[in-house]
Each structure stands twice: as structure tokens, then as C-alpha cells.
């Protein structure tokens, strides 16, 4: 049902000179959900955001945000979106309060509302004490919060966050995550780009993995992890000598033949439920002693490596040269 999607894109393409930034991507985010675009620098995430926020016209394909076409209905569309970018686009020669009031005036909020809305957001984003200070005296985390507050001034139903935590210290990152989660709880649809796997894992309902201008995988965090091979049992044996008995005992419940090295046995399991109990019972019956046993899930790092053939960090280094 296309009508239920707050963000939908079909076959978006965009080239800059000789670089194909977007090579036909499809995206969809139901209203009230968080869609994460995960990929290294230069993968095309920012280009996708620019097209969806009407900053760039696509070369091909089509996209609708809040039901409005990004090309033919761009002027109307801008009243329905908020954008916070990796550059913390606030004016550092104005105070925090003046920045938010200015944005409210430019959204053409009714008289008096830019002021009341600014006060409300400064309070909510823990910036009230710094409201009348020039932004150039703000810390990086405060600037990002102000930038996010500016994107929320007009209570837009769809919010675009382009790498909202890039360059922030861990404490500020977690603060910002909590703030974003708060907005989502109020029903805002969010499109979030990130190169951090833990960020996508934590915030996004669905994740589209982007590499070299294409969506190479799409699904929930769990689905993507399953795609890499699901859950894995790690068993440390009491004695290295019992490896063969252990393999024989466990093969019936393994999705793939168990691998063993230096007393540590690893195997993907067919089903998470009861896997540990089942393994322990079978090993007991075979008389194999267990030192430690744990069930682990692949991380999004594993997913990225598996899908692209290169780790997220490697690609990041490559991508920087393209910018």
C-alpha cells in the first residue's frame, strides 16, 4: 500500500560528472518508522537525502515524501520535512534562541509561535541555560542538539538525519540517540543515514545497506543478521581430545558442519530456541565435558563484511577519496 509509506523512492539515479552516486535505489519507510541507510562514506547516502529533501533533482527514478513528489511538488513538500545534517547547520554568530526563532519565521509559523516554539525546544534539548549565548561558544554536542531542534521547529511529520552523530564523543552520541528515540515515540517518521553499525542497530526499524550507489540488502536488523548465517554456538571443551566425539554428537543440530580449533568449537545452529539445552544434553550423553557454552548473534559488522566483501572501515577510507 503506497499510501501508507511516508518515504518511498523508486529507481533513484544521480551522477556527478564521472561518479555514479546513486545507481537506481528503491527505498520505503512506513509512517512512524525509522529507516536506516547504512553505508560507508561515499556510498551515496547523502545524495539520497539531498534528493529526498528537494535539494538535488534526481537524474532518473521518482520519489515521494509525505505523499508529495520531490520534483513536481517540492515547494509544498518542504513544509512537511525537517533536515539535520552532519554539518550542524546553525549560524554561529547568532544565539541558540535566535537560530530557532529564525527557522520558525522561515517556516512561516503563526505570529508568536517561533518564539514559544524556540523556548520549548531549547528547554527540551537541555539548552535553555545557553539560549542567549552565541552558538560559536557551544560544544560540538550542543551544536548538534541545536541543529536537531531546528529541524523539529515546525513539527515536521518526516525527519531526515544525515549522519547525526558523526564526530561526536560517546556521551553526546548516546544523548542524541535518546533524543531521536523520543521523537520517534511521538510518531515522527525518520530517515537516518549512518556509517555506524551500532547506531543503525539501535535506532532503525528497517535498514537499507548501501554500497556504491546501490541497495545491497534491506530488512530489519535481525533479518540482515540472519542473512549472514543466523545464530552460532561457541562451546569451549574441557578436553581438546574429545573434539571428535563432540562433533559427532552435535552434527545433527548444526546448520553447517561444526568447526573446531584449539578446543573451541563453533557451529551455526538451525534454531535458536532450545539450542543450548539440546547441545548440553547431547554432549552429556556422549560423555564430553563442557567448560563454557554461549549463543552469539552476528553483528552488523559481520553483515557488512559479508555483503560487501570489505569491512565498513576499509570502505570508509576508500570513500573519502571520492568526496
Amino acid at each position, binding site marked *: 500500500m503506497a499510501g501508507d509509506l511516508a518515504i518511498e523512492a523508486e529507481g533513484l539515479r544521480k551522477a556527478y560528472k564521472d561518479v555514479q552516486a546513486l545507481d537506481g535505489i528503491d527505498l520505503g519507510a512506513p509512517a512512524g518508522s525509522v529507516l536506516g541507510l547504512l553505508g560507508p562514506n561515499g556510498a551515496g547516502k547523502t545524495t539520497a537525502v539531498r534528493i529526498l529533501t*528537494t*535539494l538535488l533533482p534526481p537524474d532518473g527514478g521518482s520519489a515521494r515524501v509525505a505523499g508529495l513528489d520531490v520534483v513536481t511538488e517540492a515547494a509544498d513538500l518542504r513544509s512537511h520535512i525537517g533536515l539535520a*545534517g*552532519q*554539518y550542524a547547520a546553525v549560524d554561529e554568530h547568532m544565539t541558540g534562541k535566535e537560530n530557532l526563532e529564525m*527557522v520558525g*519565521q*522561515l*517556516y*512561516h509559523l503563526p505570529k508568536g509561535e517561533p518564539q514559544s516554539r524556540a523556548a520549548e525546544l531549547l528547554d527540551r534539548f537541555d539548552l535553555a541555560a545557553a539560549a542567549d549565548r552565541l552558538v560559536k561558544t557551544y560544544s560540538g554536542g550542543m551544536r548538534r542538539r541545536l541543529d536537531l531542534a531546528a529541524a523539529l521547529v515546525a513539527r515536521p511529520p518526516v525527519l531526515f538525519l544525515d549522519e547525526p552523530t558523526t564526530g561526536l564523543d560517546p556521551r553526546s552520541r548516546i544523548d542524541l540517540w535518546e533524543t531521536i528515540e523520543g521523537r520517534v515515540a511521538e510518531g515522527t517518521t525518520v530517515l537516518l543515514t549512518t556509517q555506524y553499525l551500532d547506531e543503525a542497530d539501535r535506532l532503525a526499524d528497517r535498514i537499507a545497506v548501501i554500497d556504491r550507489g546501490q541497495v545491497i540488502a534491506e530488512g530489519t536488523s535481525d533479518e540482515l543478521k540472519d542473512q549472514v548465517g543466523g545464530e552460532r554456538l561457541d562451546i569451549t571443551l574441557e578436553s581438546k581430545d574429545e573434539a571428535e566425539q563432540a562433533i559427532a554428537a552435535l552434527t545433527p543440530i548444526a546448520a553447517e558442519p561444526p568447526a573446531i580449533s584449539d578446543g573451541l568449537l563453533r557451529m551455526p545452529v538451525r534454531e535458536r530456541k532450545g539450542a543450548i539445552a539440546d547441545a548440553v544434553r547431547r554432549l552429556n550423553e556422549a560423555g564430553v565435558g563442557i567448560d563454557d557454552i554461549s549463543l552469539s548473534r552476528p553483528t552488523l559488522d559481520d553483515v557488512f563484511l559479508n555483503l560487501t566483501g570489505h569491512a565498513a572501515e576499509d570502505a570508509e577510507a576508500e570513500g573519502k577519496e571520492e568526496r
Partner: protein
Amino acid sequence: MSFGASFSDTLVLARRAVMRIVRAPDLLLAYTVQPIMFVLLFVYVFGGAIRTPGFEYVDFLIPGILVQTLSFGGFATALGLAEDLKKGLVDRFRSLPMSRSAVLTGRTLADVATNSLSIAVMLIVGVIAGFSFDAPLTHILLGLVLLLTFGYAFSWVFAFIGLSSSSPEAAQSLGFIILFPLSFISSAFVPVDSMPAVLQAFAEINPFTIAVDAIRALFLGIPAGNNVWGAFAWSLGIAVVFSYLSVRRYKRAVVR
């Protein structure tokens, strides 16, 4: 986008540009101390060596230096736009449901305010150095309007430069490289007929010469010929061409 909304967006952004100057008063030096310095240098250092038949040098100079200073008044627009591009503010503005030209009309409007300040400062210093008006009040007022109009036209040249440069520093030096020769190869500081023939030919068709001659006519009571209308026409032409180019460029501008 209604006209009223565009106008209110322009005022919001003009206010922002003026606030910037109030907040960072060092920028104000460019509008006050720098023109004073130029007036004093030309009157007392070069003035004695330059022959201006029929005029005291200070009377000859003030209209010329006013036109030159006003044409540079828009540099704050180039600087500000280049900075907005670099910092990502243009992305934010372009994602808002606001007028597509307000960022530019706001800044160029703010330049009119700072240019007015420059005119006041220079006239005061000029009068102290010996300049005197010799024309009816209506002519003087028309001259002031012409100065502001000419300056406004060049604000649009600077807007285009700001949107086309890779950094605020580059915008500033590009502006000076283009405008300095234009303003010097004119009747602003020396009589045109003292130049070599090639420069003289250029100076005579240079809009700076036309504007300077128009202001001299309006302030000193000499026959204006077609210069006043010519100067207004040039201003209008420059403003129309460069506002069109600038708005077109702004609509495609993205963070660098």
C-alpha cells in the same frame, strides 16, 4: 510563494546579516575606517601631484571615492554567502518552505544599510578635509539615491561571486581582483585624459566613469549630460543580470 511571504523572509535574513555586523564589529572597520583612510591618503598624499583643471582635488575626489567605496560595499554579501555554503546553512535554508531568493535579497538589502553608513562617514570626513557641495538639495539627494542604487547593483555581483567561489577567502580576493582595476581605470581619481589612449578608451565606456561623472554633476553643479540616466541604467542592468545569475546558482547550490 506569495509576495508578502518573500518580503518577510527577506527581512528576517536582512536582520540576520545586520546582526552579524553588530556582533562582530571588526567587520565594521571596512565600512568606516577603510574609506576614511582612502580619503585622507588621496587628499593629502596623492592629491598634490594630481592636476584636476577646474576643481579643487578634494571636490574632484569625493564623488569618485564614494562610487568606489559603494561598489565594494557588497563584499559582506560575498563573504557571508560563501560562509553559509561552507557551513551547510544553505542546505538548511533550501530545505525550508521559504522564498528561493530571500537569502540573497536579505543580504543585499543589509548591504544598503551598511553602505548608507559608509556614505555618511565619508561625507563627514570629506567636508572636514575641505569638500563642499555646490548644487541644489534635490540634486544632492538624487546623487545619494544613485550611489545606493549603484552599490546595490554591485551587491548582486558580489552575491554571484560568493556563490561561485570555493571559500570565503577566495570570494573576497576574487571580488577585489575584478573590481579594483574597474574602479581605478575610470574618472574616479584622475582625469581620464591624463591616461594613455588605450586606457582612456576603456575608461570612457566604463560604468564607473559614468557613475562618477553623474555624481560629480549632481554634487558640484556641473552639466550632467546623459550621465545620470546612464548610471541608473547601468545599475539596473547589472542588478538584473547578476540577480538572475545568482538566484539560478543559489537554487543549485550545495555544500562544498
